[in-house]
């Protein structure tokens, strides 16, 4: 298998994720898009690790594990913040969150 199969897929996911975080208005959806990006990263890590030989493969997997764990934490925190916003202004529309500017 070409390593680029995976890498390109990762790139695609990455860019879809980027589109998502920029274009989606709903806070939760933005968080989901972020997960896409992180998955792209993980694909890279594992594919490239596999490419670079045994140690690298292990390192890549470890790295991706850390990413997954922290992603979980981030999502938790993110949802908490979104929830907080929702509670104070009964919306998760990010466009409306612009009290401070300039």
């Amino acid at each position, binding site marked *: 298998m070409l390593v680029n199969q995976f890498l390109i897929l990762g790139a695609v996911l990455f860019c879809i994720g980027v589109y998502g975080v920029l274009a989606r208005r709903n806070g939760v959806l933005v968080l989901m898009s972020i997960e896409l990006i992180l998955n792209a990263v993980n694909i890279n890590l594992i594919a490239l690790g596999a490419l670079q030989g045994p140690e690298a493969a292990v390192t890549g997997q470890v790295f991706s594990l850390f990413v997954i764990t922290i992603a979980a934490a981030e999502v938790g925190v993110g949802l908490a913040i979104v929830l907080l916003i929702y509670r104070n202004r009964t919306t998760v529309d990010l466009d409306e969150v612009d009290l*401070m500017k300039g």
Partner: protein
Amino acid sequence: MPFDSPSLDYHAFAPEIVLVATLVVLLFVDLVFEERARWATSTVAGVGLLASVVPVLTLAVDGADRGLFDGAYVVDNFALVLKALFLAAGYVTVLISTDYIGDGDYYEGEYYFMLVSSLLGMTLMASSRDLISIFVSLELLSIPAYLLAGWRKRDLRGNEASLKYYLLGVFASAVMLYGMSLVFGVTGSTVLVEIGDVLAGGIGAAPLVTVGIVFIVVGFAFKVSAVPFHAWAPDTYEGAPTPITAFLSVASKAAGFVALVQLVFIAFLGRDDVWAPMFWLLAAVTMTVGNLIALRQTNVVRLLAYSSVAQAGFMLAPFAVAADIPVDRGGVAAATGAVITYLLIYAAMNLGAFAVVMAVARRTRSAELGSLAGLFSYAPGLAVLMSVFFFALAGIPPLAGWYAKFVVFKVLLDAGNAAAVTLGVIAAVNSVIALFYYASVARHMLLDPAAGTDTSRVRVPASLGAALGLCALATLAFGVLPGLIAELGDVALFGLLP
């Protein structure tokens, strides 16, 4: 096969261990005596931070560079100086938080828990010498910060600050991660030194690496709020609790620079063709844009936000020319020294500035420039302190700021080529523009007639006063005897030289 558990050098971890202990004690205290001992938590945090300075000192006295986990975790002078800086900054933050958090009904125990864990992340960052550790410690210092930014739960601005900081932070770390994955993929290693060796070779020339480096640097450019990755800073600073703002603008920014120094000067040293122009651009744009926008601010905190953006520009400048400095004059070490010196001085000045803003805000209940009018007439002490810190930021001798700017100029002219000198002139002009808004603050305090009705004396709580005193002392001392700080900046390098 059998698992051989690694032999650990606990002395090297001592500071972090103390911090972890502090965390535990904090939780415990908060758990056991709920309301009765809210006051205790800040004390515990403060004591814990001070306690963790002790091992830092012992390590410094011991002096030997310690590398663990085949170079993934290093304790050298560089790390120690910065750990000390983080802890000191954290301590001052605790001091200025005590009454702020105490007075409003915020979750107090958790607040300090967050603060200390973020600090733990920073101290780890100072020693992390491989991508994974850097990533983890970055997240460890960031996530609590996201939460702290929104600590004022009922305040819409607080929520907004937290949200913006969080989202952009996550975007940035996502980009950084992708970059790391690429670099890892090319070099097959996550340890900076090894990466450096590989990249120095021909393989490093690949555009792939370029992209990787750019992405990684962007991740930290966000942390240090370099234009155009600064957008979060003003909003977050304005909305977050002021002590946290101070914390972010100093400690978090410093952590970003620490990571940059390690990554750029160890891992990417061979690819200055990539990062030198990038940093040149970032530095120039950052200081200019920061200053220009700051000219139009009417809110002190927001003004300080933009000012810290501009200051970041100054700190980025040494990176732009690091590769051009002759090795016999220290090479990248000189640049690192400049950055660290700047960081140390900047920490003192900026923390002081925020502290005094808070002290004043206790009376004016506002951070608008107008509310400062005539401060000098009813609170001369605060007014003088504030002008001390602001003019220090502006870089007026004999206040510390001048030396910070001076070392940057020095590095620029040391590199000496056209690009460097141009950047130097840009910096010079910017330092003049900057004066305009710093002075405008002083103008409102000292030159305007008092606007407020209540002009009785302002009471400054003890801990806040202590913080003010410390910062003012440092600001003056570093300004008159820059030798003190210069030594630190100099010493900090040796473990780092490739």
